[in-house]
């Protein structure tokens, strides 16, 4: 036998109702699941023990699929009565099982005062009107008055801020009435202006409650958490419930058995819970920029997956918003990703727990982004603001500023690689020129041909312009001067040409008289040539018949005159080397004199 094992499995339990009424006896039981002895009751200070303890044992053995299971129970029962109203604790009892002392749990009992009605023996209906149901149209006996059966609307708060949670409870109160069941014919209000958060109602359990001087059995019919969505007075409409009562029929007693067994009928009764007005005040002004709409109390736990990564690898920032309040309405804060990151929609995981105290839990937001190029990036702090309901002030929570170092990705297609499908996804260029598939090969032979030369010095560059310019200017001035001098000389010669010619002709005339042919021809020739040279500004070097003819033609001298000129010149030239007769000399003299006069007239 596993004695120790037995001892471990000992369960010694005290049981009593949670609520009792002063002066009403109730049962207090201690139960052990092993055979025990030496039961020692606790000290009852605020309670009178009316009787007990009574000891009773029960055991059962059952075979299920050939397996024998046996249970044993030993019960010590007291009849106890509370002396005063209040909440009291009955200490633990002890018992010995196999020589070991075992202690039971203590019991906490709420003692309600006696009914005022019972004390006064009066109806006392005046004390409870406003909260109780007024409608009792249905066929019910006098017992089921509104004092005995009603539904209360209990708002946990009637003055709240916008978005602050409050709980509405519909509670059934009944006394001296036998409520058999509640029908499904329930009409709850719309709760317009509120966001309703349902939660698990649990099983309906009855409790004792002292209300308005009376003790009632109560049952919570419906509970809900409400979040007001706007400020102002919001009215909640009355709710309607329907209960089925067991009522003793008021018919004449036919036999004693009727009364003995009782004759009951089920009566349906409509119960109306009154409406209630909630005063909702707006949130104070001065909302922070990143106000999330959250009202309650929150904490923020940020985390980042990595701060050192390669391009095209994902980075995840996770925000855990923990707390209690209107969790469902929290806006997801946005991350302002730097350029070059490809962000994805954040993934939100809600883990909320709705209970009578409101909604609490965690909202986890995962932000995923993929950096597409290498570099160092700073992700700015994410701000999460909410209205702290306890401190009645706005609070701002913030993540740290993350610095992410993105290295060039190993899987980033190298520019030299042929395939670049991944690049295309973020290259927004429209007009990529198809230039080929690869770069040209390196240059292997031209080393040293195009070395970097020393920078061009502009200090003396201007000299290259100024010196030739000055040089050209000097040349121009010199040549110009010379030309001018020549022109002046020509002018003098031009003016003196006739005089000189006449002088030479005089000399020729003298030679003619002396009959000196040589001197005469020389004089005539010189006179003609020098006259033409001076008049036409032909340098002696360029002096010949062709030049003279062309220049004369340019100056518009008639062809006959030109032929005369040519004639004179060739005659003089010819005669000089082959002297002829005297009258020829006279003719030539006359022709020359004539010619010069003609040319003078022409003003060449």
């Amino acid at each position, binding site marked *: 036998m596993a004695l120790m094992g037995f001892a471990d499995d000992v369960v010694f339990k005290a049981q009593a109702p949670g609520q009792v009424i002063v002066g009403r006896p109730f049962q207090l039981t201690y139960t052990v699941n092993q055979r025990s002895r030496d039961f020692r009751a606790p000290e009852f200070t605020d309670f009178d023990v009316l009787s007990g303890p009574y000891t009773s044992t029960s055991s059962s053995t059952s075979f299920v699929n050939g397996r024998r299971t046996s249970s044993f129970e030993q019960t010590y029962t007291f009849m106890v009565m509370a002396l005063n109203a209040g909440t009291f604790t009955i200490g633990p009892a002890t018992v010995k099982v196999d020589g070991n002392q075992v202690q039971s749990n203590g019991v906490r009992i709420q003692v309600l005062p006696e009914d005022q009605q019972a004390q006064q023996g009066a109806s006392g209906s005046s004390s409870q009107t406003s909260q109780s149901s007024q409608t009792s149209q249905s066929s019910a006996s006098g017992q089921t008055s509104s004092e005995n059966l009603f539904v209360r609307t209990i708002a946990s708060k009637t003055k709240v801020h916008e978005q602050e949670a409050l709980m509405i409870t519909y509670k059934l109160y009944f006394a001296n009435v036998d409520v058999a069941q509640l029908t499904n014919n329930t009409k709850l209000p719309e709760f317009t202006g509120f966001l309703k958060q349902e939660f698990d109602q649990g099983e309906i359990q009855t409790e004792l409650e002292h209300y308005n001087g009376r003790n009632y059995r109560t049952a919570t019919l419906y509970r809900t958490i409400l979040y007001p969505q706007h400020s102002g007075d919001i009215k909640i409409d009355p709710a309607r419930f329907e209960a089925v009562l067991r009522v003793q029929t008021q018919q004449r007693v036919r036999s004693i058995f009727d009364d003995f067994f009782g004759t009951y009928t089920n009566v349906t009764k409509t119960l109306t819970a009154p409406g209630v007005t909630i005063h909702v005040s707006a949130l104070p002004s001065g909302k922070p920029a990143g106000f999330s709409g959250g009202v309650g109390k929150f904490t923020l736990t940020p985390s980042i997956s990595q701060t050192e990564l390669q*391009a095209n690898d994902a980075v995840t920032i996770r925000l855990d918003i923990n707390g209690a309040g209107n969790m469902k309405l929290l806006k997801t804060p946005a991350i302002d990703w*730097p*350029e*070059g990151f490809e962000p994805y929609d954040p993934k939100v995981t809600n883990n909320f727990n709705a209970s009578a105290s409101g909604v609490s839990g965690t909202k986890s937001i995962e932000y995923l982004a993929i950096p*597409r*190029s*290498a*570099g160092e990036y700073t992700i700015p702090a994410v701000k999460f603001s909410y209205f702290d309901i306890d401190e009645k002030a706005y609070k701002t929570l913030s993540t740290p500023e993350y610095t992410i170092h*993105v290295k*060039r990705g190993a899987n*980033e*297609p*190298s*520019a*030299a690689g042929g395939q*670049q499908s991944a*690049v295309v996804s*973020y*290259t*927004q*260029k*429209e*007009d*990529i*020129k198809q*230039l*080929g598939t*690869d*770069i*040209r*090969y*390196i*240059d*292997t032979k*031209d*080393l*040293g*041909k*195009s*070395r*970097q*030369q020393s*920078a*061009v010095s*502009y200090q003396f*560059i201007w000299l*290259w*312009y100024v010196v*030739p*310019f000055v040089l*050209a200017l000097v*040349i*121009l001035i010199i*040549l*110009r001067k010379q*030309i001018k001098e020549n022109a002046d000389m020509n002018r003098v010669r031009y003016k003196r040409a006739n005089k000189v010619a006449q002088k030479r002709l005089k000399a020729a005339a003298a030679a003619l008289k002396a009959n000196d042919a040589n001197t005469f021809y020389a004089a005539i020739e010189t006179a003609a040539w020098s006259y033409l040279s001076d008049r036409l500004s032909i340098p002696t070097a360029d002096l010949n018949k062709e030049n003279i003819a062309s220049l004369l033609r340019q100056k518009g001298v008639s062809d006959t005159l030109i032929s005369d000129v040519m004639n004179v010149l060739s005659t003089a030239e010819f005669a000089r080397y082959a002297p002829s007769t005297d009258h020829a000399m006279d003719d030539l003299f006359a022709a020359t004199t004539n010619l010069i006069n003609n040319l003078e007239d022409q003003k060449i």
Partner: protein
Amino acid sequence: MRRFIVWLLAVSYWPLAFAQSAFEEANSAYADGRYADAATMYQALIDETPDAVVYYNLGNAQFKQGELAQAILNYERALRLRPNYPDAKYNLAFAQSRITDNIPEQDFFLSVWARAIRNNLHERTWLILSISLFLLALVGILLFLLGREPWLRKTAFHIAWVALIFSLTAGLNAGSLHKRDTLRSEAIITQGVVNAKSSPDRSGTDLFTVHEGTKVTIRETLGEWCNIRVGNNEGWIKQQNMERI
């Protein structure tokens, strides 16, 4: 004596011979696909003597490693030293087609042409051209002023004014190249993504975004910030985000 001359020749050509062997070693590393090694060796050669060919090869090695911005930078540098370098031009265009930013040419087409022509020749060449044309213009002017034959004077006059205009253009090109190269007013973005700010500090408003490999013009420098221009946009970015050509 002869031995001495041989020795002298050897000494004077030794650095060149050394550079040649290092260059060939780097080329074989590139041929073997050891681009990182090749890039290191090319960089060492450039530290000795900058050379257009080495810049070009370094750009290729970096391109093969996926360093687009560095490759573009070195192609640009190669073209600075040898303006008419077809391979470098081709690879530069190829690399530029891979970068994110597509900066449309905002200038008037004539100035685009003018810049293209300017970039085709070396600064020194432009300068020599300018001086030669200026001399030609002077000769033409002298002939025009002093010539006696009407046809000669006419021809000289036309030659003179055409030569003068071209000389001026060539001189301006040389000057603009000189300004560009001495001020180093052009840069390549080396950081993946850079936001240009409205003012030279971190709190400035983000005006526009430039990506790795984009060529920008630096207009002004203030501490570690530079005022840059890309297309029609102007803004401030940090110097560490780019490298001057």
